[in-house]
């Protein structure tokens, strides 16, 4: 029953979300809503002294959107902008794959659990909402190269 969608990893991140709700010196934030269901997320971005990514998030929504925020935070915090961009692009490609892509676990780690989501068009937005907020906050903060902004291709 929907095990392809609700992988154990997703349920675990939903029930035990990782990451933090605040960072000390956010450079920018982005608030995104899914107007069809009312889900909301705010993502703050900053950088540490070595220029590595800091992320905080807060939101409400379904298990897919909440778990995705948690996985995103765990994957990307502490990454350089270039490393983060690679992961962000890979996740977007996975979500657009209609279930036909075999995700690279080396790059996406826990995020491979979302492969099944790409087969449910109504849920892709749930999985992407926090990633879209992050990309928007990165653009606002200037902490990104063009390739890191989701939806844009070099």
């Amino acid at each position, binding site marked *: 029953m*929907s095990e392809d969608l609700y992988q154990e990893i997703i349920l675990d991140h939903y029930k035990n979300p990782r990451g933090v709700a605040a960072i000390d010196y956010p450079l920018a934030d982005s608030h995104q809503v899914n107007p069809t*269901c*009312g*889900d909301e997320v705010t993502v703050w971005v900053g950088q540490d002294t070595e220029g590595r990514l800091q992320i905080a998030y807060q939101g409400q*929504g379904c*298990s897919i959107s909440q778990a995705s925020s948690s996985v995103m935070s765990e994957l990307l915090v502490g990454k350089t902008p270039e490393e983060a961009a690679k992961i962000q692009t890979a996740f977007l490609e996975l979500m657009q794959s209609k279930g036909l892509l075999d995700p690279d676990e080396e790059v996406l780690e826990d995020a491979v659990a979302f492969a099944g989501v790409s087969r449910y068009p109504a*849920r892709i937005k749930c999985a992407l909402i926090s990633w879209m907020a992050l990309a928007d906050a990165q653009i606002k903060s200037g902490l990104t190269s063009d390739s890191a902004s989701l939806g844009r291709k070099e």
Partner: protein
Amino acid sequence: MSLDVASIRADFPILSREVRGMPLVYLDSGATSQKPSVVLDAERHFYETSNAAVHRGAHALAEEATDAYESARSIIAGFIGASPNEIVFTKNATEAINLVAYAFSNASAKYRHGHDVDSRFVLGPGDNIVVTEMEHHANLIPWQELCAKTGAELKWFGITQEGRLDLETDPIDHNTKLVAVVHQSNILGTINPIQELMRRAHENGALGLVDMCQSVPHMPIDIHATGADFAMWSGHKMLGPTGIGILWGKHELLNSMPPFLTGGSMIEMVTMDHTTYAAAPARFEAGVPMVAQAVGLAAAVQYLETIGMENVERHEQALTEYLLQSLRDLPGVNIIGPDSTLDRGSAVSFTVDGIHPHDVGHIMDSQGVAVRVGHHCAWPVCRRFDIPATTRISPYLYNDFADIDAAVNSIVKAQEFFGVVPEVAG
């Protein structure tokens, strides 16, 4: 069962299909209803035998098509006890509400430029429009926009904790020009006291509009007895096709309104610098209209009349009572809206402790049960109850108790899957 559901179901081809390897249990009729074969056949028959543009052309097909279109108008008018010249075809109910909103907007703009318009449709600062907190966005946003354009103020009735209209919060006063209210809430299921609300509107010199999208498909309506000046509903929620909605209005009022969409078919006389308009309903039906959809909707109306709307209403009441009882018996499930069948329709919203409505809907879908999740285009209602969204079960004449059981079982599956089955005391 007051209806022979098995024989009704046989009229709906889609109800015999499977989804995700399970028999389809369709409980999303509040969003759109399924279509019986007679509706599909009527549309096909029209295209195969009489298709032509209506109200133009001198050939036999044009005459037959015009006759089919106007016959459909008469049949649909008769369904609510109205006259055919009070029925305007629109693309959907949303357009019908906007048509009335634009009558106010256009009359107000023309008035400022010295045109002769009916003062009942002229709005400005100091005037107000009254709605309720339980409106569908389609009966809220057009009035927000109208107020922004004219300087009028938007006011509203609140909602009680039980999900009823709070009549104590009545904001109607002598400056009210329009009271626009929903008959049956699409998210709460609440049936509002329309006659009383229309009485209050008229006492204060205001016009009254009723959104009947969730009432006309589900209960007998005598439109003049409601006291409304305008009402609207959609074809697709009452077994008819998409692409057609109905605006009902008192003929005298319709003839006092400036047009909404302008162009062909809606004119009386045209020169290069001036046009006079046809009487209603033609005034509001610019361009070649949706003839096949009108024919299909008339077939849907006749199908419902054969069954009898009293029987449809009684059947839905029985299903709703059973559904409310079943949900009440489920620990961890909260009904959002009236918890009895008194002044309540069959759309039942609920939340499940510990599971987001989207996840509830998804697990239900994996069991073949189709329901609606989200804010149901009534976001202020979710804010009122401090919830992000709900899951909604909305049965119709083709559902039976077994469908309700399937839905309830699938909710329990969702609780088990997410590990949130509450412990029952004792």
